[in-house]
C-alpha cells in the first residue's frame, strides 16, 4: 500500500491554535488521522488534530528568503512598541 506524507497539526487545549508538530506516512486521510493520534498525542498532548496532505502545502522557497523577509528588518514602525501611547488614552 503506497503511503503519502501528511503534515500534522495539534491543538494542545481549547482556546489555543493548532500547531504544526510533524508529519506521518499514511495511505489516506482516515489513517493519517489515526497515525497522528498514535504518534503525536500518546502523552495527552492534544484535544484536536488536523492532518493535511504535505503536497497541498505551498511553501516559500529558501531562494526567496532575501526578497521575502529581509525588507522587514529595518521597519521598526511596524511594531506597536514603536509608538508612544498619548497621555490619557485608554483602551488601546
Amino acid at each position, binding site marked *: 500500500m503506497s503511503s503519502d506524507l501528511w503534515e500534522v497539526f495539534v491543538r494542545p487545549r481549547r482556546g489555543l491554535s493548532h500547531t504544526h508538530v510533524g508529519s506521518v*506516512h499514511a495511505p489516506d486521510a482516515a489513517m493519517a488521522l489515526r*497515525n497522528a493520534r498514535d504518534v503525536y498525542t500518546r502523552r495527552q498532548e492534544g484535544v484536536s488534530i488536523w492532518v493535511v496532505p504535505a503536497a497541498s502545502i505551498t511553501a516559500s522557497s529558501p531562494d526567496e528568503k532575501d526578497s521575502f523577509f529581509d525588507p522587514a528588518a529595518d521597519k521598526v514602525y511596524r511594531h506597536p512598541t514603536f509608538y508612544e501611547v498619548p497621555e490619557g488614552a485608554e483602551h488601546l
Partner: protein
Amino acid sequence: MNAQLFEVCLRIGDDALISAQRLAEWSAAAPELEEDIALSNIALDQLGVARLMLSYAGEVEGAGRDEDALAYLRDDREFRNCLLVELPNAGPAAGPHAPIDFGVTMARLLFVSTYQLLLYQSLLDSSDERLRDIAAKARKESAYHVDHATQWTIRLGDGTEESHRRMQAAVDDLWPYTHELFTGTAPSGLVPDPASLRAPWLESVTDVLTVSTLTTPPDGWAPSGGRDGRHTEHLSYLLAEMQVLRRAHPGATW
C-alpha cells in the same frame, strides 16, 4: 478465597496478557514507523488491563502472589486465556520460524478487540465494583483497538487482489478459534454469560467483513480448551520467551 472471581480475573487478564505479548512481536518489525507505534500502543493497553486483572486475581486468591508471580511463574496449564490469542502471528498452521503475517494480526485484533469491547461494556453492570472500574477504563481503549483493526481490515480486504486473498485466508484460518470466546459458563452477575456476547459480536464483525468485501466463514470446527488450561503448543513457546528472564534470575530488578 472466591474461586469463581479468581477464575474470572485470570480469564480476562490472561487474554489481555497473551494478546500483549503477541502484539509486541511487531515492535521494530511493523511495515511502517506509524504502525509500529500503533501496535505497541495497543500492546501496552492490553498489558495495562492484564496488570490490573492479575493484581486483582492475586488479591482475591490471598496466597501472596502478585501480578508478576502470576504472569511469570505459572506454567501453560495454569493459564486461562482462549486459544485465539496464543496462536502465532504467522497463522495457526505455521511452523515455529514462519514470518509474522500482518493480515493474521489484524484479523485477530478485529476478533479479539470486538469481543473485549462487548465484554468490558457488559462488565459495567457487574456486581463486583473492582471489575466495573477496570472495565470503565479498558472499554475506551478497546474501542480504539476495534477501530484500528477495522480500518486495516477494510483496506486490506478491499485493497489489491493479493491483500484480499491474504486477508480472507487469515479470517478463514482464525474463524474456528473465535467460537471458544462464547463457550463455557460464568458466575451469574459477576460477568456476562459468554454465549450472550456471540450475537452482537457476529453482527459487528460481519459488518466489517462485508464492507471489506470479505466472506464471513461458515461455522464448523470449534477448538477449545484454553479456559481449562489445555492449550496449543504455541503457548509454551510464547511463555518460554516471556518468562525466561524472570525464571533465570529470580528477584532481579532494573
